[in-house]
């Protein structure tokens, strides 16, 4: 039939027909759905580094055809997590904005629960300039036409916690050995009296109390500027207990300005009990143990003021001190008081040594309670401390020898030895 048509008519029909065909073809192509490939080979496992049992490691593979999706770019991944129970939904827990990254850690989980994990790849239309920064950006990008392709679910799986941190094995062994030494020393102490070397600072305590009693002046006791959670403050409070018992016997006033309300409460109770034990409850003056301020230099100024006004015959500085140590000790020195200090703050020791008559250095602060009480059980604990020091000194000698010989034996032996002292 076409052959019967005149050539001119055929020419006229050819162009519109071709245009119609192109139009139909294009429309059909537009109707074809674009394939958005999902992340592949999702694998979820416990994080071996996480000993608390709160993390899972999530790994996946980037979709193979992610770069071939026309008109879209892979903007990143969304990691979904949910409990493994009926009806539980997965919720987005984390965003991985880097499309090349295919591993993440899911934290904040509980070891007692099982979880299901899923990863979604987010495809952002090329004309959209926004990025997948965080979970808040997801809603915006979806409104802009971003499409998500989710992987298959993985799980159930639970994070596994450890009941022991193997990195702390050396600490555990050292602690147990040292505790055993102290306990053995305490056990053997019950069989006989033990000799302890005299500590001049503690020998002078009685002299200081005697001096204050003779002069009719009070004793000032400062238990450092740390809180009650500091072991140095606790040691200072233990010393106060022994000291207060002696001052109670002589009915000598003891002034205790505090910079921590909890320390105040504990020290009042300690001094009160000491006075009761000494049989002088009526001599206890609660108003002499008072709160000043928690401001470091405010406290120093207040204590300096007390020293200048009340002129105590003896000043005790026990516990943890900072930059105020010399301000306190030097003012006390100017008042002519006998001064006994004790601290484990190595940076403040030179100041106390300079300005005080006697200074308990480091461990002597912790030995003071036992020394003053002369109780055999407490004295035995000092023996345990000494044995511990000998062991540490031996370790130092061995370490020094190994370090010296490492030139001949190689560095590995030193590293192996040092690894025992590292966490």
């Amino acid at each position, binding site marked *: 039939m076409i052959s019967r048509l005149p050539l001119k008519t055929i020419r006229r029909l050819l162009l519109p027909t071709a245009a119609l065909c192109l139009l139909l073809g294009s429309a059909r192509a537009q109707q074809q759905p674009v394939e958005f490939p999902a992340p592949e080979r999702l694998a979820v496992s416990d994080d071996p580094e996480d000993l608390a049992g709160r993390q899972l490691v999530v790994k996946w593979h980037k979709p193979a055809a992610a770069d071939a999706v026309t008109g879209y770019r892979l903007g990143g991944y969304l990691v979904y997590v949910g409990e493994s129970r009926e009806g539980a939904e997965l919720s987005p827990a984390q965003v991985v904005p880097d499309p090349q990254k295919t591993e993440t850690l899911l934290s904040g989980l509980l070891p007692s629960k099982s979880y299901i994990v899923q990863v979604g790849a987010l495809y952002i239309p090329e004309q959209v300039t926004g990025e997948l920064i965080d979970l808040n950006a997801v809603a915006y990008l979806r409104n802009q036409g971003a499409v998500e392709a989710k992987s298959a679910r993985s799980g159930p799986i639970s994070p596994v916690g450890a009941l022991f941190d193997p990195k702390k094995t050396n600490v555990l062994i050292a602690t147990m050995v040292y505790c055993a030494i102290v306990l053995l020393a305490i056990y053997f102490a019950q069989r006989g009296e033990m000799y302890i070397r005299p500590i001049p600072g503690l020998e002078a305590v009685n002299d200081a109390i005697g001096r204050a009693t003779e002069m009719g002046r009070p004793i000032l006791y400062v238990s450092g500027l740390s809180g009650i959670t500091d072991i140095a403050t606790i040691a200072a409070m233990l010393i106060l207990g022994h000291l207060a018992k002696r001052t109670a016997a002589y009915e000598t006033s003891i002034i205790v300005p505090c910079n921590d309300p909890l320390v105040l409460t504990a020290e009042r109770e300690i001094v009160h009990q000491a006075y009761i034990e000494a049989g002088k409850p009526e001599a206890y003056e609660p108003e002499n143990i008072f709160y000043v301020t928690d401001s470091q*230099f405010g406290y120093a100024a207040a204590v300096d003021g007390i020293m200048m006004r009340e002129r105590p015959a003896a000043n005790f500085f026990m516990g943890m001190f900072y930059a105020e140590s010399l301000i306190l000790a030097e003012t006390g020195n100017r008042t002519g008081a006998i001064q006994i200090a004790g601290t484990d703050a190595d940076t403040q020791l030179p100041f106390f040594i300079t300005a005080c008559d006697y200074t308990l250095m*480091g461990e002597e602060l912790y030995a003071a309670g036992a020394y003053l009480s002369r109780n055999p059980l407490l004295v035995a604990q000092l023996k345990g401390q000494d044995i511990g020091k000998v062991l540490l000194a031996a370790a130092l000698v061995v370490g020094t020898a190994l370090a010296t010989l490492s030139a001949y034996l190689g560095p590995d032996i030193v590293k192996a030895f040092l690894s025992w002292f590292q966490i």
Partner: protein
Amino acid sequence: MRLQIPIALGFLAGAFMIVQFFVPYYALQMYYEQLLDWAIIIGAFALVLGLGSLFRSHIDKIRSRHPDYIYSFVALISFAVMFFFGIFYGVNPRTTFDWIFNNIQVPLEATVFSLLAFFMASAAYRTFRARSVEATLLLVVAVIIMLGRVPITDYIKFVDIHGFSEWLMSIPATAAKRGILFGVALGIVATSLRILLGIERSHLGGGGGAGR
């Protein structure tokens, strides 16, 4: 019972703290954090006790017309002023509270801190009088350290004072410091142990120590 219950509680809390150090499991860490929160809460309550003590101490001084009772007036009025502005106008930057703090409290503290320089000088003068071998040694070492810290010794070419000063600080001084720290660490463990086991009871009203 008055002694046994606190000792038992102390032992349990202390033992838990030791165990949690070695056991990283989530549940134990959670309870550990809860215990720390409790400590903060107790601390907040204790602050009220501290304030009560502060007020009582100053009011007693005013009542008894203590020779320095004027200072008690200053302390109480200062407290009232800061309390008023803090409660009613807030403590944020650019508030009156903040202004008072920055222009009165901070300079006052700085003044006390600056006294340290003078106290250091007077303490050094007293200590460095070379009356014994130890004092002489201290004086010599201190002079070397001080010279090692000032730039003028750069011009002294025949002896390396900087290097010697650094050596003194990093070898003998550090060795002594570490020796002290070892003793401190052992003392801390031993003290903790005797409190946990109830051997040391002076803080509970057993001034003589154990066995009572």
